[in-house]
Every structure is written in C-alpha cells, then in structure tokens.
C-alpha cells in the first residue's frame, strides 16, 4: 500500500466512523420522536403508556364542542364512529377545525380517562386524515 492509498484509507475510515456515530445518534433521536397515529377505538383497546406522546386522529363529533366562558379552555369529542374520546385543550383552535371534520390531537391520556391535547392539527387540506384512521372510519361506517 503506498502513501496515497494509506491516506485515502484514513479518510474513508474517519468518514465511516463519523457516519456510524451520526447514524446511531440519529436513530436514537428518531425513536424518541416518533408519534403513533391511533384512532379512539385503538386507544381504548390498547394499554398505551401514560407518558407516551400520541396523535389521536378522528372526527370532531357534532355538537360536542364546549367552551369555558372565561378562558380559552375547550373540550370536544373525537370519534371514529365507534368509540368516542373526550379531548381537552387550552388555546386557540386552528382555522380548519370544524364539527364533523377530520382532526388530529397530539398529547397524552390523563388520569380521568380524557385526552389532554398539547396541540391540535387540522391540516390545510380539508379532506386530510391519516390513512389508518380513514380506513377504520370507513369500516365502522359500513
């Protein structure tokens, strides 16, 4: 092996070690920050760790939105037409949040069996819904 090849080999090894270290850190970070999409039925069936951040997807049930008159506290029911779950949220709801429209609530289950949302997403696409939530709802509707 001549000098040039040796130097090249060092570069390659450095690069690979760096890449390996980066990759392991990245997968660690990735696993920490994955949000699973679940429907109210799936949430009811499964025992999901209380500390786990989840994304609950479904439809806002008609007539279920209750506001606190003195604050921005709001409560509504997310349904997949089979199971209902009460979601609580403190803050401003997005423009596209409507009764009988798709919604995603990010947050955790609390001790009272309600879902405490830290973020409400109603995406710009009015027909937007995660695929499994959509399939689940179609099944329940049929």
């Amino acid at each position, binding site marked *: 092996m001549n000098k040039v090849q040796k130097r090249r080999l060092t570069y390659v090894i450095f690069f690979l070690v760096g890449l390996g270290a980066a990759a392991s850190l*990245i997968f660690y970070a990735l696993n920490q920050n994955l*949000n*699973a*999409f679940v429907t109210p039925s799936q949430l009811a069936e499964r025992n999901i760790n209380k500390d786990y951040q989840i994304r609950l997807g479904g439809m806002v049930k008609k007539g279920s939105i209750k506001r606190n008159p003195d604050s921005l506290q709001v409560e509504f029911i997310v349904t997949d037409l089979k199971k209902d779950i009460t979601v609580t949220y403190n*803050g*401003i709801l997005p423009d596209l949040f409507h009764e009988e429209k798709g919604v995603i609530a990010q947050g955790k289950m609390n001790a009272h069996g309600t879902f405490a949302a830290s973020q409400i997403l109603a995406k710009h696409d009015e027909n937007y819904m995660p695929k499994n939530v959509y399939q689940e709802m179609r099944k329940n509707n049929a």
Partner: protein
Amino acid sequence: MLNFFGTIALWCALAFSVIQSIPPIIGHFRNSKRLLAAARPAAYGQFFSVLCAYILLTTAFITSDFSIAYVGMNSHPLLPFMYRLTAVWGGHEGSILLWILLVNIWTVIFTLFERNNALLPLTTAILGVVNFCFLLFLIFTSNPFLPADRLLTGSDLNPLLQDPGFVIHPPMLYTGYVGFAVAFAITQAALLRNEVNQAWAFVTRRYALAAWCFLTFGIMLGSWWAYRVLGWGGFWFWDPVENASLLPWLAGTALIHVLLITEKRGAVKSWAVLLAIISFALSLLGTFLVRSGVLISAHTFASDPSRGVFLLILLAIIFTISLALFLSHLQSLQAPKSAAFGIISRESGLLINSGLLIIAMLTILLGTIYPLIIDALQMEPISVGAPYFNMVMTPLLFILMTVMGIGPLCKWQQQSINILLKKLLKNAAISIIAAIALLFGVTNSLSISAVISLTLSIFIIMSLYGSFRIKPGMFFAHLGFAVLIIGILLSSLLNQELEVKLKPGTSAHLGPYQFFFVDLSIANGSNYRGVRTTFDVMKEKRKVAVLQPEKRIYFVRDMVMSKVDIHPSIFRDLYISLGEPLDDNAWSVRIYYKPFIRWIWAGSVIMIFGGILSIIGYNNGRRS
C-alpha cells in the same frame, strides 16, 4: 380553441426535445459535427413552443376560460388579476409546465453564454433528455389543457396561496431546482467527453452558484410566507415539503464548495461529480415529494398515485444511468500528483464541511421519508416530530460552524499548525467573551446552547477578517449565514407569546408592550367576506403601532383564513393573529413579540448577495 393550440404546442415541444437530444448524442459517438449542431436550434424551437403553451395557459386564466378543466379547478371569475397570473402554477399541471419552461430558459441562457464551450452540444442534449421526460409526464399524466367535462364556474385558488409572498416563491424555488439540472447536464457531458477538469469545474460552479442563489431565495420566501400566512409565528416547521427544498440546498452548498477545490487545485473530481448528480437527484426528489401526495404534509397539492409513480421511475432511471456513467469513468477522475494536500489545509476544511452537509442532508432525508418506509412495511403509520430534526441538527450545525470558522484561515495545500493555532486562540477568546457579554446584556440569562451558537456565529465572522477584498463572495455568504444563525437563536430565545380572550375596549400585556383592542369592522374583498379588528400597540403610554389582523371566509372553497398583521423592525416584530370569535364580541387572539426575527431573512439576503458577488467575480474573470 386555446386548449387545442396548447396541446399542439406541447407536442411540438416534445418533438423538438427529441431532435435536441437524440441526434447530438449519436453525433457524439459517431464524431459527427453536423448531428451535434442540431442541439442548439432545436433547443430554441423547444423554448419557443413551451413559451407559447405557457402564454396560452396564462391567457386562459386571464380570460377565465373555464372550458379548460385546469383553469376551472384553480381560478374563479372573482379572483384578483395578480393571483390569476400566479394561479397558473398554483396547481400540479401548471407547476410542471413552469418547471419545463424554466429548464428551457436555463438552456437558452447556457447556449448564449457558453457559445464557445466544447461541452455545449452534449449539455444541451442532456437537458433535452430531461425535458423530454418531463414533457411526456406532462402530456400523458397531467395535461393542463384538457377540456372540462362539465362547465365549472371555477373552484378558486387556495386562499393560503393568495399572498404576495407566494407570487414569486414557487418560480424562485423551481428556478433553483432546475439550475441544478444545468450543473448536472454539464457534468454528464464532461464525463462523456472525458473532460472533467478545472475548466469544467469553472463553468459548472458558476451555474451551481446561480442555482444556489435562486434556491436560497426560494426557501427564504417560503419561510417568510409561512411566517406571514400560517399565523403560528413560526418560520420553519420541518414540514416534508420544506425539507424537500432544504435537501437540494444542502447538497448544492456542498457542491459549490467542493467545485472550488476542483477549480483551484484539480483535486477531488469524483466527489464533485457525485455531488452534482446528488443535487439534481434531490431536486427531482423534491418535485416528487411535493407533487406525488405521498407525504402527509401541510401542502401536498396532488394526490394522483400514477403521477408519483411516473416521477419515481424517472428519478430512478436518471439516477441509475448517471451513476453508471460516473462509475465507468471513475478511472479518468484521478487527481494529478500536484493536487495533493495536507490534513490541515483549505482543501480539508472544505471537504470536511461538504461531508457534514451531506450527513445533515441524509438525516433530514431519513426523517422525511421514514413515515413512508414504515408505511411501505405495513406497520402502523407514524410521523416524525420537529424535535427529531432540532435534536440531530443542532450538534451537526455546531461542528459545521466550527469548521466554517477555521477553514477560511487555512492556506491551500498545507497550513502551518502554529500560526493557525495562534489565530484560532485569539478568535475563540474574543468570540466567547463577546458572546457572553452580548447574551448577558440582552437577555440576563445564559444557556449553554445559546452561548455556543452565539460564540460560533461570532467565531465565523472573526474568521472573515481580511477576506472582504480578496473574496467578497465568501465574505458575504459566510457573514449572512452567521447573521441567520444569530436570528434563529435570539428569536427563539427571546420570543414571547400570549393567547388571550379579548373584547373591544380591553387590553393585554406582553413584554414591554400593551395591546388595546379598539374595535371591529367589516372588510370584504372580491372573493371573500371578512372582519377587521384594530389594535393600538402602546409602549410606556406612547403609541408604537396600529395592527389590523383580519379573519376571512373565502366563499368559493368555504375556507376560513386568518390574515395576521405584523409591525416589523430591525430588532423586533409585533405580530397579532386572530383566533376564533367567542361569545359577545370577544375573540381569542394570539400575540407574539419576536425579537431579531428579521435577522433570519436579512441573513439569507446577505448570503444571496455573496453568491451573486461570486458569480460576478467569475464573469469578470477576476478569479482565474
């Protein structure tokens, strides 16, 4: 009528693209000058046909010709004139037509500027191949001139896109994407002719720089648009579509740095060629991700799977062929002996940073397509949150910035360690002291990551000392990057926000400001109904600004939208966004006090200015 001529123009363009690509490529292998010479006139012909098609489509939008399905889907008789022009590329079909038109414009510019370049015919031919594929895609899966099967009154342009910031954002972004097609085409031509040399790097770098400037500008406009329109006060959301534009930017940044080594020293040719291929592949991937609807994102526009599949196949074919060409010519990409360099040298600095940029690109790519991989494996759908990106990008950014602060101090080939260490110690000491003093002065608190990022920003600025006259391009590009980082850091550190319920006549406090809700009025537009609120902003009993955020309902799409109002200044923005109407005239209101947020866009503008200076430097031949 319009649709008939439009479709004819597209078919003409397709025919010209065949003449532009196939005879010159045959000519290259047969050594026939006559066949090679077909490229240039055919390129002009194609440009003219596509331009005609584009003008016809624009005319259809201006005259609201709803016999064309695409116009019906994206326009409305009540849509204001300016947005009719932008609605041309507001949907999928028109945006692909714009893509093709931009490739043509770049091709024409290239043929005009590089008239004496031996690579010209082949480069033009390869651009012809790219356009041929996209024209096929346009004509067969997404023809904008298809007649409407029933007469529509028009379903309007998405209200979120009816914003001045959005008028030029997509064309700028696409101009950037497409510019990398030129860099890619020159590279492929050079590989075919075995002319990957310093002259090649010189030409390629100029076009890559131009593409980079446009892409930077496009991304900047996108973030500015998100800040002003989405009403969440944020400027970057790690949304898949935003990531899709950042990927080619990172690869392109690596490319322009590595091409510098090849141009000056004739070294690392293979890495430069590979980066040119990657940059273009990522531009295609960006188009694919945005246009295929495979990602759950804030702005997936199309959701026809056949389009996504076509783009993916195209991406695979182009990438495979170009990689095969690259690998088969790898032997000819050996650097000359004279190009050797030591571990501590300008070359090493540039190389390390290009490696870091590519690692950053890969991490973002992984986070962006991970949900797709999981979905393909039939596992439960998941999404990757913004914390992932922040978590992995922060340490990478710190390393990148450290190297950015050292690299410019090194000489080409070999740098003496002692001299470098002396300079570094001085710079590091000054930046740490300055950063701590500044942070303590402005915020009264010190967090580790804040100190590190501010120190590194100042460290980068220190390393530019003395380079203003010799390398103005680098000076401004690096300075702009440091300003950008300072803006991101301070705006997130000092940001204050408040969500309150307010009635006319009441007020809220935020930071040193008081926001008085004065009154409500009706504000209707040609295609929406709206409510306008007026807020007086006071600071120590002095009126600083009047803000008038609005809430609108666009009736065609029955879509509610908040129009935020911002009072900008160099050191802080005041930002109000209306939430929802609550009982008895009260509204939920979101108020932000955002210091230093302007620095983000100011930094980007400075970076672009640096890029432009570099291009001008090339044209004057100063940097040979």
